[in-house]
């Protein structure tokens, strides 16, 4: 699980928060409601997790309930059967 979260964190930092310290992007930092991810950024993040973890995310699953924090994304991936330690 920690590796999954770390990969997501590194992706978000590199793509959407260039220059930010990893310690400022916590597992429970809101991503959508804080404006860190707008709709286009969310789309890219969804594409990233689809490709990286080999899953398909339906449009209705890409909302705030699953994609607002690194925690909720990891929990969502778990329900999709992504192997988490």
């Amino acid at each position, binding site marked *: 699980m920690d590796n999954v979260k770390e990969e997501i964190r590194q992706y978000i930092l590199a793509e*959407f*928060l*260039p*220059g*930010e*310290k990893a310690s*400022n*992007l916590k597992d429970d*930092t*809101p991503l959508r*409601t*804080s*404006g*860190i991810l*707008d*709709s*286009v950024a969310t*789309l890219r993040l969804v*594409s990233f997790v689809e490709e990286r973890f080999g899953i398909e995310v339906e*449009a209705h699953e*890409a*909302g705030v309930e699953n994609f607002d924090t690194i925690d909720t994304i990891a929990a969502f991936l778990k329900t999709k059967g992504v192997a988490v330690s």
Partner: protein
Amino acid sequence: MDHNPSTSHLCRYLEESAARFADRLAARDPDGTELTYRALNDRADRIAGFLAEHGVCPGDRVGLVLPKSTDALTALFGIMKVRAAYVPVDWTGPEERLRSILTDCRVQTVFLDTRRPELVGIAQNTVLVGPDSRDAQSASGCFDWSDAVKHAPANADIGARSTDDLAYILYTSGSTGVPKGVMLTHRNAASYVDWCSDVFAPSANDRFSSHAPFHFDLSILDIYVPLKHGASVHLIPDELGKIPKELARFISAGKLTVWYSTPAILGLLAEFGDFDRLDCSSLRLVLFAGEVFPVKQLRRIVARWPRPEYYNLYGPTETNVCTFARIPKPVPDDRTEPYPIGWPCSHCEALVLDHDNQPVQPSEEGMLYIAGPSVFTGYWGRPAETEALFLERDGARWYNTGDVVREDKQDGFIYVGRRDRMVKRRGYRIELGEIENCFYKHPAVAEAAAIGVPHPQAGMRIIAYLAAAGEATPSIVEMKSFCNEHLPSYMNPDIFLFVDALPRTSTNKVDFQALTRAFQSGERSAVSSSLTPA
């Protein structure tokens, strides 16, 4: 000039279609709600009756704080039917910004989604729309949508309609940090809609996408062109509008014939749309506007959808679309230059002038001025700012678009850029000063500068340079969140860079060109050190 200004009125389009095509589909909600022409016109008449009864007079402004829906569409016609002007805003926008807009133009009534209860009381009357509207309407001056839409049609005398009546006010980014309202009359909008009729030959069999939110000027074509011709409007909700797979499915399932959006959305469709499994061959027209379409992405979408005709439409909110270019197919492999914005629409005239307001030689760069019946009347409550943008010449009133263009004998006008600090991102206009103004509200920010730097794939990116007021530098996460509270999401910068101090010109102004040069040359680390004052 021998323009033939439209004698049409936006309400008349609906009413005439309601008489001719009463039982045909006028608009469909994504949730499956459908309105026939008769139903849409009848409901709009009832909303008009409600508004007239509750004190809305000709010339008043009425706010629309609603997601896109057949109800919002009904409200907008109801407002215009009492000769009032609708003021659509992003219903998800920051509260402070919505308040600033709705109080600036002093809306008499507001149609408000129940998920924004904090805005109740901003107008004399509030019509609540949404699942809990009945519970929420107990406050004074609050009404329920389902009651309003059952009201008897207006019987009050509201005087004769005029094509000079204000139809709507669209708010755009203002350089001083306060959005400004672009006022458009029925004549302004209808002369553009009538031009669309001539060029795109819509019919009652067409099925139009409505992708843009109603507060975005692309919605004018989306709404009024189909309704004028008895065609149907297929409303795409904001959430769905940015998910390419869903959009491709929407086009395919709805058998849409006309698509209109920003290049950004078409670019996403080309990149992520699920085309292998979906048939989008119903499309006959693909229109785009709002920003430069990177050729690589345009080539990709044309290759995906070879059948439709493609048009680049150009025009600031102040003029509606005023120039256009048909894109030849296919897009040649070796083309790298973006396509031109083309020639003036038949209802407009264009002039390219130099610094002394003299026409430039053909092929020289100059400022694009537009005249014609679609040019706006002014910014709400800002007569001086309005006048500064107009030039009297040859008996006509020419609007200075602020866009620098060059004329190509064959292709028409080529967009070169801007001389001021406005950029376009995802089709939205952004005054970079408005972003800087937001930063100055943050206690930890001493200096702020925003620049726009185009990227070949990502389109326009906003780069924020910040100097901290004290020892501690705020985190990027914090600054992003702060912007999110004060600005629309499309204005939130892509990249934040902290520097000790901003570079200044000899006159002590922020040296934006130095920032842009430094950023473009990719010397990010070098920038911060070279910006440190000696």
